[in-house]
């Protein structure tokens, strides 16, 4: 019985991990076809030499960085506010942003920006992508930070206040240092979801703000391509490392 369960679990793990592993293996294939013909780094060279990929990757990094800084600050403050006093409204809205279908978030933001941009001189671009990413990352940050706050001893901050520290000092000088690992973990996850997003981004991106997932999507749409296998392997490995780091920090 126990062995059968272990075998079943192994099969489900294989289902979860083998597809990406196969993709990674074939990214080192010297042939363009799905037949192994020998090890090569050709597709990595080709990907590195592709200016469109490089530009999109740079855009994604910039957008990811800016939106992470904003959503981590806003999300951490929100988590702190929720920890001090429950708010069904704020918690419910954050929860809803997590579960709203991406396409609905995407088109609603598109319509909103179009409505706003009747004012001449405004248009879609990096800033609209950042705004969209901040909107959906705040909830991820709040969930991670709040989980950590719940394990925290609230009396530490009270002690600071008894000694005369104003509440904001209690927050910045006692609570924040104590939950710093969770904040960093949350920031890494916020960066991951930002770097990853295609559906919402594609609706609100302008001509100058094409992100890496948008380029990946366009290539995938035209059919599989070994260069894409190489890019995918790099992205998945890099994001995997971030998630691993984030997980470590959360457990610290």
């Amino acid at each position, binding site marked *: 019985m126990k062995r059968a369960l272990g075998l079943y679990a192994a099969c489900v793990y294989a*289902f979860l991990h083998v597809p990406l592993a196969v993709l990674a293996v074939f990214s080192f294939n010297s042939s363009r076809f799905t037949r192994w013909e020998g090890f090569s780094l050709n597709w990595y060279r080709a990907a590195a030499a592709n200016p469109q990929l490089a530009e999109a990757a740079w855009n994604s990094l910039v957008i990811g960085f800016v939106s992470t800084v904003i959503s981590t600050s806003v999300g951490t*403050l929100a988590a702190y506010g929720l920890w001090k006093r429950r708010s069904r409204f704020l918690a419910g809205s954050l929860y809803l942003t997590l579960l709203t279908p991406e396409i609905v978030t995407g088109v609603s933001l598109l319509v909103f920006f179009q409505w706003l941009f009747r004012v001449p001189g405004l248009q879609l671009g990096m800033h609209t992508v950042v705004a969209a990413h901040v909107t959906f990352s705040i909830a991820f940050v709040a969930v991670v930070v709040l989980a950590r706050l719940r394990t925290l001893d609230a009396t530490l901050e009270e002690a600071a206040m008894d000694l005369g520290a104003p509440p904001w000092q209690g927050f910045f000088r006692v609570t924040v240092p104590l939950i710093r690992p969770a904040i960093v973990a949350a920031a890494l996850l916020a960066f991951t979801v930002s770097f990853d997003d295609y559906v919402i981004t594609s609706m609100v991106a302008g001509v100058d703000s094409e992100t890496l997932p948008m380029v990946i999507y366009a290539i995938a749409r035209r059919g599989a391509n070994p260069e894409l296998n190489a890019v995918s392997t790099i992205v998945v490995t890099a994001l995997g490392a971030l998630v691993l780091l984030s997980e470590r920090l959360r457990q610290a």
Partner: protein
Amino acid sequence: MRFERLCRWPALAVLAVLFVAPMGIIAAYSLLTRGAYGGVELPWTLDNYIRLCDPLYGAILLRSLWIAAVSTALCLILGYPLAFFISRSGRRKHFYLFLVILPFWSSFLIRTYAWMFLLRDTGLFNTVLLALGWIREPLPLLYNDAAVILGLVYGFLPFMVLPLFATLERMDRTLLEAAADLGARPLESFRRITLPLSFPGIRAGAILVFIPCLGAYLTPDLLGGGKSVMVANLVQTQFTAARDWPFGAAVSLTLMAIVMLLLFGAAKKSSEDLL
């Protein structure tokens, strides 16, 4: 003002401007008439919602519900034993759980692309089967409902495993010992104790999988290849190629209404909150 109340304001402001206001505009647009060059015009109308009952669009909605339901059921079948296994694996529990969480965070787009790579006519499965001589022509594995369901199960399985693991982990094991002392065989104590006690986890997992499956855009787009259209693709088409914003807005709101109904239904049954 108190500092702790001030802390909520940035998040409330962002959500009000970038989440609530856009939804409000969508709601208003869904009641307007399609403009001559895209956009919207007066008069106010309910036509966009009435159009949803058109067999063509109604069928897409029903198909989406059906595909989401099948994917959820498959996630339960794959996820329950896995969650059970993890909850019973002692010190390696965290590692096993991490192996489930990892794909959840890694790129959804790339994970979907990986299946395109495996399933297409010149993909790995067909290449291997052809080389073995088991088939003469590539099997049409991609661009059908089965491929979409496969992609959805692959994508959202972690959402099923996590809540199931949480309930199974919290379960009072002494109940099983008591059952065993009273002569119950393992299978019977599973059926009469473990399974009923894990219903909250099953419900949470089912909702967490069903909602993203119902609203999935990328999976039907890439693995269904336009032949297996779901609600999200219908929304996207209305806002791009068809340029019928009011109808797209009505479909979006309908989708949102289904999601909210499911969530409220679930929230009533469980007292636990994520936030």
